[in-house]
Every structure is written in structure tokens, then in C-alpha cells.
């Protein structure tokens, strides 16, 4: 089930919220939350829900044993077991096809016979699920957090439907206390509903509209002229941002309505004035996860040589690319960003700082936009062709993309770059703040209702509604 489906909006969410509201204690609310989360996942991936449940329960007991033991050797063994279980599932479901296909190509090119292989289907949300389970095992192992007492609470932490499918990645230590002890305030719930409607608007009105216009062009790159190629890739840059950040807003909003505080995932990433800054603003929960659980254990910045530092950066971004998808284009995309982070350390960051802010933001945006080509187009020869189109300075004819898409582009620019201005920043703070003043509450609630209504009308009267970020 996806948040922007009518099944979710008309049936699942209202019923979930109403029952949740009227249940008396957090304990019982958690049971309801867990049941609905299992239903939510089983609706979209009925075959995998049992695997997810089984592995989560096993992991809970592995980590419990790890925590109860004082023997450091045993603790390490159980940590390794937990990591193997979770990473093993990820490796099998997400990467097996990729490695087998590449092995087959290699064997075939060397003249050996290939073997038959039944393709493994990718369970939705497995990358997010794995990263959350890893934080639990590692945080408990590092004694940064105590494990949960009940397996049902752990299942809720992992399977909580708002963030199960596409994040944000909620670390165990960020939410441990909230699972058992949280205060649900009505003004915060109303702000949650407002946040949810903002996300829905980003997804349905901006991302979907852009997607419906630009998507057909990706299947016929040969026919693109340079002008349209730029329109398409700018459109994609905005589409992916509003799609993903919209989803995060919806997840954070639902969390708030249920009394949880999830971490922020985006902070106007397109106003970054360097790639280093971009990664502090884009998919922040992944960035900080990579930093704390991979980059720092590798030595981080505190290494003896610059070579080692650059290796650490490259490795982390290679892994980040691979996390996004099991295919060469994602690996290249990770390398691309890793390379620019190294260039930032060498000279690029200082060079960009020496420029007027608007110029450095524009350059960074262009670099990020160019990276979306390899992110979006799996076939590398087609990606290469797309780059050729972008840099063939001959025909800049731009076709009529339709009024709806023009508005979506305009909204993308306004919302994507507004935080560059003082008034834009103030607006953003106003929108994200938990207001208690009745006037503001009423204003936000009524505008949320209007936005949800408009989005529902759009969803029920048009059929194009795919999410981008579900593959990851």
C-alpha cells in the first residue's frame, strides 16, 4: 500500500487514526499500531511479510542474548550473527540477481557454460528495514541503548508502517523511549496532519505531474533534442526530490499523529552550495547512518593519510550507491558523488565559497542534476546517449509540456529554492512549527483539509500514481 493510494487515504488512515485515538493506553495503542503495520505491509507484499516477521523475531532474541551476556567474545559472536542475518537477507533479496547476472556474463565471456537462475523478487522496503535492524544490534552492542523488553515493541519499531517502506531511517536510540513512553498532544497531532498533507501535495500535485510528463521521454532518448533533454532532467531532479521528500513528510506527519517524533530527512537540499553540503541536506537519515555506522568505523576524518581519507569517502559513497539499487548505474552514481566529495576536499569547496552564493548554489544544483542521469537510466549506453543529448548545442526547441507541468515546474522552483531567501526560510519555519495558537491551528487544519481534498480529487480522477523510491 502506498500513502498516495485511495485505499490508504480513504480507508486505512482514517480507520487507523480513529481507533488509535480512542484506545486507552500506549501499550494497547502499540498493539493496534503493530497489527495495522503488518496489514499494511502484507497488503503490498503478502509473500514477504512472513520472512520479515520471522527474521525480526529471531533478531530480537539474538540481540537480547547479546545484551544479557557479559562475555565480550559471546557478545561479538551474537552481533555477527545478527549482522549476518540482516545483511544476508539484504544480500540475497537485493543483490543476488545482480551478482549472478554479472557472474554469468563473465563466465560466458570466458567461454564457460552459464547456469540457470530463478530471479529473486525484491521485497519492498528491505533496505530501510535492514538499516534499522542494524542500528538496533549495533546500538545495543555499543551499550548506547538498552534492548526492548517485548518482542512486540521491537516488531513495532521495525515494522511501523509510516517509515517501513521508504524511511526516514529511524535509529533505535532515537525512538527507543517513545516506543514505550510517549505523550500524544492534540496540537502536535494537528501539525502532523498538516505535515502529512504537505507531503501528499508534493507527491500528488508536483512529483506525479512532472513524472507523467517526463517519463515517456526516457523511453525514447534517441528522439530527444538538447533543449528537451534539459527540461526532462530538470523535471526529474524536481520529481525525485518532491516524490521522496513528500513521502518523508507524510511519514513524519503520520508519526506525529501517532505521537512519535521521526527525524527529518530533507532540508532544502537544492540550496546547497557544495556537494558536501548537499549530502547534509539530502536524505539526511541515510547520510548520518552512513557516517556513524560506516564512515567513522572506517576511521572517518581522523586518519593518517589523505589517501586513506579519500578511500573512506569513496567507499562510503560506493556503498551508498549500491544501497540505492543493485545495478551498475547506482554504483556509478555513488562513485560520482564520492568523487565530488573528494574534489570538495581538494579545492572545489573553497572555489565554490569564493563565488557569490547564488552561483555556487546553481553550480551544485547542476552537478546534482547531471548525476540524476545515471541514477535514473539503468542502461549505461542510454545514459551516455542522454549526456550526449545534453551537451549537443544545436537544437533547443522546447515542446509544449502542458499547463499542469508548467505549474508543477514553477512550484518546484518556488519550494525547492525558497529557503535561499529570508522570507522563504521564515515560511518554512512557520510551516514546520508545532503551533498552539488557535488561529494558526485552525488555519493549518483547514488548509490541510483543502489540500487533502484536492489531492484526493486528483488521485481519484487520474490514474498515474507510481512512487519512485520504492525500489530502494
Amino acid at each position, binding site marked *: 500500500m502506498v500513502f498516495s*493510494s485511495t485505499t490508504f487515504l480513504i480507508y486505512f488512515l482514517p480507520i487507523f487514526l480513529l481507533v488509535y485515538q480512542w484506545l486507552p493506553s500506549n501499550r494497547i495503542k502499540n498493539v493496534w499500531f503493530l497489527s495495522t503495520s503488518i496489514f499494511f505491509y502484507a*497488503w503490498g507484499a503478502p509473500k514477504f511479510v512472513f520472512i520479515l516477521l520471522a527474521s525480526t523475531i529471531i533478531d530480537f532474541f539474538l540481540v537480547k542474548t547479546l545484551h544479557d551476556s557479559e562475555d565480550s567474545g559471546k557478545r561479538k559472536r551474537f552481533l555477527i550473527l545478527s549482522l549476518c542475518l540482516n545483511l544476508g537477507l539484504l544480500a540475497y533479496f537485493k543483490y543476488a540477481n545482480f551478482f549472478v547476472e554479472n557472474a554469468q556474463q563473465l563466465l560466458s565471456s570466458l567461454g564457460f557454460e552459464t547456469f540457470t537462475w530463478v530471479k529473486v523478487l525484491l521485497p519492498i522496503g528491505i533496505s530501510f528495514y535492514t538499516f534499522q535492524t542494524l542500528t538496533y544490534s549495533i546500538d545495543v552492542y555499543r551499550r548506547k541503548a538498552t534492548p526492548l523488553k517485548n518482542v512486540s515493541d521491537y516488531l513495532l519499531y521495525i515494522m511501523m508502517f509510516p517509515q517501513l517502506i521508504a524511511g526516514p531511517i529511524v535509529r533505535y536510540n532515537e525512538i527507543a523511549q517513545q516506543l514505550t513512553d510517549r505523550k500524544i498532544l*492534540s496540537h502536535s497531532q494537528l501539525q502532523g496532519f498538516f505535515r502529512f498533507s504537505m507531503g501528499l501535495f508534493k507527491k500528488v500535485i508536483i512529483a506525479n505531474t512532472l513524472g507523467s510528463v517526463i517519463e515517456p521521454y526516457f523511453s525514447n532518448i534517441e528522439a530527444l533534442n538538447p533543449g528537451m533533454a534539459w527540461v526532462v532532467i530538470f523535471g526529474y531532479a524536481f520529481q525525485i526530490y518532491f516524490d521522496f521528500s513528500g513521502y518523508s513528510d507524510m511519514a513524519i506527519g503520520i508519526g506525529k499523529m501517532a505521537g512519535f517524533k521521526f527525524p527529518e530527512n530533507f532540508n532544502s537540499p537544492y540550496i546547497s552550495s557544495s556537494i558536501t553540503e548537499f549530502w547534509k541536506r539530502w536524505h539526511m537519515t541515510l547520510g548520518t547512518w552512513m557516517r556513524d555506522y560506516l564512515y567513522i568505523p572506517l576511521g572517518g576524518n581522523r586518519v593518517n593519510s589523505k589517501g586513506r581519507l579519500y578511500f573512506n569517502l569513496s567507499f562510503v559513497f560506493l556503498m551508498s550507491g549500491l544501497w540505492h539499487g543493485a545495478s551498475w548505474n547506482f554504483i556509478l552514481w555513488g562513485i560520482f558523488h564520492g568523487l565530488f566529495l573528494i574534489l570538495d576536499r581538494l579545492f572545489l569547496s573553497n572555489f565554490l565559497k569564493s563565488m557569490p552564493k547564488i552561483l555556487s548554489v546553481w553550480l551544485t544544483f547542476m552537478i546534482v542534476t547531471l548525476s540524476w542521469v545515471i541514477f535514473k537510466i539503468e542502461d549505461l549506453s542510454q545514459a551516455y546517449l542522454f549526456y550526449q543529448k545534453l551537451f549537443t548545442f544545436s537544437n533547443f526547441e522546447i515542446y509544449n509540456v502542458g499547463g499542469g507541468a508548467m505549474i508543477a515546474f514553477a512550484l518546484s522552483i518556488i519550494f525547492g529554492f525558497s529557503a535561499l531567501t529570508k522570507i522563504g526560510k521564515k515560511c518554512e519555519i512557520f510551516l514546520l512549527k508545532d503551533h498552539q495558537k488557535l488561529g494558526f491551528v485552525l488555519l493549518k487544519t483547514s488548509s490541510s483539509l483543502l489540500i487533502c481534498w484536492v489531492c484526493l480529487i486528483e488521485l481519484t*480522477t487520474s490514474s498515474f500514481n507510481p512512487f519512485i523510491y520504492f525500489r530502494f
Partner: protein
Amino acid sequence: MNVTHKIIWNGLLLLLVFVTYKSSLVLGVPSKLKGAYAQETKGDFTSDEYFNGKAQAKFDRLSQQNFFGHDLWVTLHNEWDYRIWNHLNVHEVVVGEDGYLFEQSYIDNLYGIHRFAQMERLEERKENIVFTDSLLKTKSKQLVFLLMPAKSFLYPDKISGYKNEFVPDKHIHDDFLKFAKANEIKVLNFLDYFQNHKLGHPAFPKQGIHLSKYAETMVLDSLLSFLEAETALDLYDYEFTDIEMSQQPRGRDDDIGQVLNLINPIPLTEELAYREFKFNRVDTLNTPDVLVIGDSSFWGIYPNISNYYLFGNHEFWYRKNEMFSIDITTQMYTDPQICLASIEKFDYVFIMINNTDVDFVGWNYFEKVKSEFLKGLE
């Protein structure tokens, strides 16, 4: 303050659940919107459907189509798209100049898009057409193509942006006509007729995709005149009333306009011509047996033929395989045997084809005839 917030929050929840309740009441209730589209029906689903995701997709569609006030939202949405963007939410339909409505595929064809693919498809059919024509000729029967015009070819200047587009000299129907001429296959070229004869009244209504009733009458008249000329018999007489002019379209004359589902329909600003007519069969013994294989263009003509028994033995095969006749009371479909039998059964086989669709000419009739014939020889 907290109590006020609580009241607002609970009120909001009740409002959301009210929408759920109202939507669930109409789950599976058919929509009143006009036009052809797949409507989901409420029904049980199997565990297989659940595990392969079909049940969920079905419920999604069902909940989309039965959202509280769905029909009203659709019309509002359509109205917005039309008034603001001049865009119509009907598959393939676009608005041209002066409120003329067109199907995009017909416009594409005017611009020569897909012509090479069409030529390839037509090429594959040619041999089977010639074969069937020869077979008919050996039985003293006749194959006749009725080449009908697409609206885009008669009103190109009403297509938005037409003047800036490249229009090729030759179209797929030209290839077809050349082929028919080379093989001495009869073609009644209504495209040429309507293109080159200035009519007193519109051949296509602004809001229709088929010929106007006025033009349909002319086609029927031509068909009957053709049969009279071919048989050299006086088969029919005619009764016509005066032409009545009306801004209110009748029958299919606003068939696209009707499915736009707008709150404020596009105004009808043209006068369409209507006249009551009746063709009587005066020679009840010698009228030929005619099979017509055609598309929806023939639906405007079929009732007259059927109601007044204008042909002897008559059947209409709609597109691929649906069979219609005064004698057929249940749904029947053609098969290769029926196709081959038609060679014996009818004196004339009329294949009605739109000039933009000639690559689909006969909808596999010729292929079926030939394969079945060859099967009989084995």
C-alpha cells in the same frame, strides 16, 4: 487550549471517517459518467489474487472509482483541465480550432506518423486480399472496399497548429488505392468524394468523430445506387423530406461531445442538416446478399439497412469478429469457417475502412479465408 485542540482533532477524525463511510456506501455502485471505461465491481477475491497483488490493485481501482462524490469530482476536474489548459480528459481526444474535436491518432496519420509501420502491416495483408478477391471472382461474387474519410483529412485547418506541421503528399490510403487499382479491386472512395465535393452541410459535426447523419445518408444512397448500377435493376425507391436545420445534434452527431463529462458543455455553434428519408426495396427477389465488415462508421448506416431489409441476406461483422444481422438474436462471433463460408453465402463483400486504418483492412477476414481454404485442400 488543549481541550480546544482535542475537539478540533476529534472533529477532524470524524470528518475523515465520514468520508470513509460515505465512500464505502457506494462501493461497486456503477458510475453515471458517460463514455467507455472499465468499471470495477465489488466482489470476492481469491487468495491467489491476494498473493499476486491483483486483489489489492482491484480494490485500489474500486476505491478510486467510488470515492465519495467521484462523478462530481471528475466533472469538476475535467472542467478545470478544459477551461484552464484546453485539455480534454477523454482518451486521445483533442480540441481544435472553433471547438472542433478530433482523435489524436487521426491527426497523427494526417502528419504521416507511423506510416512506415502501417505500410509493413498492409504489405503483409496484400497477398491475402488478392487471394480472397480471386476466390470471390471465381464464384462471380465481388469484393468492394468502402474507403471512408477520417475527420482530420476533411477539416485539417481546424486542427490546432496544423499550419506549422509537415503534411506528406502521400498517405497510407494512397498506397492502398494504388494496390487496389493494380489488382482491379473495386474501391468506393468516399474520402475522395467528401474531400473534393463541396457539400451544403457539414460532413462531420464539430463534436462528433463519425460522419454526420447528413453524410451517412449520402453514403447509404451511394451504396444502393452502386448495387442498382451493378445489377442493372431498379431495386429501390426513395422518400425524402425537406432538410431540417438544427443546432441540437441527433444520434451520434455529438458522440465525442457527450463523453467529455463537463459541467458546462462546449457550446454547439453549428447548424447540422437532418432530413427524414426512407429507402424502399421495390424488387424483393433480386436484391443482392451483402456482407459488410466494418468499424463503428457503419453503425450509423446499419439500422436503415436492417430495418428496411435493403439487402437480401445481410450480415454486418463489426471489426474483428462480432456478427450482427436481423436473424442473429444472441451474441455471435466469426471464425475461419464462417469467413470461408461467406464467399458462398453473399454476392457482395463490402469492407468498410477508415482511410487512416487501411493497414488493418478486413480485421483478419482475408487471412482467415485463405488459411481455411488452404486447410480444406490438405
